[in-house]
Each structure stands twice: as structure tokens, then as C-alpha cells.
């Protein structure tokens, strides 16, 4: 049977999609992250030049999105590990809400500190 959008429109499907999208975007970001840290090979000045560039509001916004992606992938991954390796408990149904809450808290904590 071919599943249409209605069959997919439930929280677990959106969690699956969020885990995939965050994983792909984080993987694409990694080379840039490693390149930025590698600037330390040129001394403090090399790294500082990059950090000054990252002071722009748009970059800070992008950093906040990255923190949200990282937290979402972490909490979504912990949820998957719990579902796969722990015996089923009723509270597992609440893991999605918990994952979303922790993700938002991490994003907000970063945003409040970075601005």
C-alpha cells in the first residue's frame, strides 16, 4: 500500500525527518567548522579574524540555528537509542516532547548568551 501525506503526518514521522535533516545539515557544516578551527595554525590572529567576522548578527543567527540542529540531533538520537535498546515503557511516548523541550532550551540558552 502506498502511503500518502496523511499517513506520514504524525509526530514520530516529523521526528524522523528532523533527525535526518539535522544530521545532513550538521555533516555539511563540519568541514567549515574544522576549517575555522584550523586557522589557529596561523596563530591567534588567524582565529581572531574569523571570530570577529562571526560577530555579525546574521552569523550569530546561523550559529543559533546550528545549536538548535545539534541539540535536536542529540535529543532525537537519544530518543532513538532509548526506543531501540530499552524495554518499552509508557513514558517513552513523552520522549518526543522532552526532546523538543530540551532542544528549545539549548537554543534559547545559546541565544541569550550570544546577543
Amino acid at each position, binding site marked *: 500500500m502506498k502511503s500518502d501525506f496523511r499517513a506520514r503526518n504524525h509526530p514520530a514521522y516529523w521526528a524522523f525527518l528532523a533527525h535526518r535533516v539535522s544530521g*545532513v545539515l550538521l*555533516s555539511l557544516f563540519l*568541514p567549515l567548522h574544522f576549517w575555522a578551527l*584550523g586557522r589557529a595554525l596561523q596563530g591567534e590572529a588567524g*582565529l581572531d579574524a574569523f571570530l570577529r567576522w562571526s*560577530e555579525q548578527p546574521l552569523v550569530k543567527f546561523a550559529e543559533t540555528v546550528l545549536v538548535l540542529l545539534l541539540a535536536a540531533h542529540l535529543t532525537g538520537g537519544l530518543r532513538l537509542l532509548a526506543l531501540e*535498546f530499552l524495554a518499552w515503557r509508557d513514558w517513552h511516548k513523552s520522549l518526543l516532547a522532552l526532546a523538543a523541550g530540551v532542544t528549545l532550551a539549548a537554543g534559547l540558552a545559546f541565544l541569550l548568551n550570544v546577543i
Partner: protein
Amino acid sequence: MYTRAQVLLWTAQRASAVVLAVCVIIHLVTIIYAIRNGITAAEILGRTRGSYAWCGFYAIFVAAVAVHAPIGLRSVLAETLNWRGAGLDLTVLATGLALALWGFRAVYAVFV
């Protein structure tokens, strides 16, 4: 792909996920704490330069990422683009090696 190889990839994905869970929690807490008064190269390098503890931590972090990310991308590419076979496996292997080399270079850069 042989079943044994699939099982190996599945196990490596979960094992690296457990390591990454610990690393990412430490990383997120460090980022959120370090960013509170703005961040400078002196601050970052003051923490990491010559520190075998941070060097070891980031080396483990990079190694786990270099295992985890390519296996995840492999699943996404196979299921989304219906890409299978040696071409996909080689691409994934090259991605893992590149991430490891690029990542260890970054760890070295903030250690020396």
C-alpha cells in the same frame, strides 16, 4: 551488501552515537558557557593549547563523528536517491576519511 557488513555498520552507528551523545552534551555546555561574554581566540586557545585532556576529548569526538556522519549519510543517500553499490560505499568511505583528517588537523591546530 552482505548482511554481516550491514550489521557492522548498524553497530558502528549506534556505538558512535553513544560516544557522540556524551561528547555533544559536553560540547554544548562548553559553547553556551564560553560564549556568554563573547569569545576570543585567546580564550579558546588558552583552554586547549597544551591540554592533553581537551586534545583527547576532541580527538575522540572527531573519531566518533568520522564514523557516525558517513554511515548516516549513506542511509540517507541510499533511501532518498536509491543509490546503492560500490560507488556509494567508496563515496561514504572517502567522506569518513576526509572528515577524520580535516577534524584531526583542527584538533592539532588548537593544541599546538
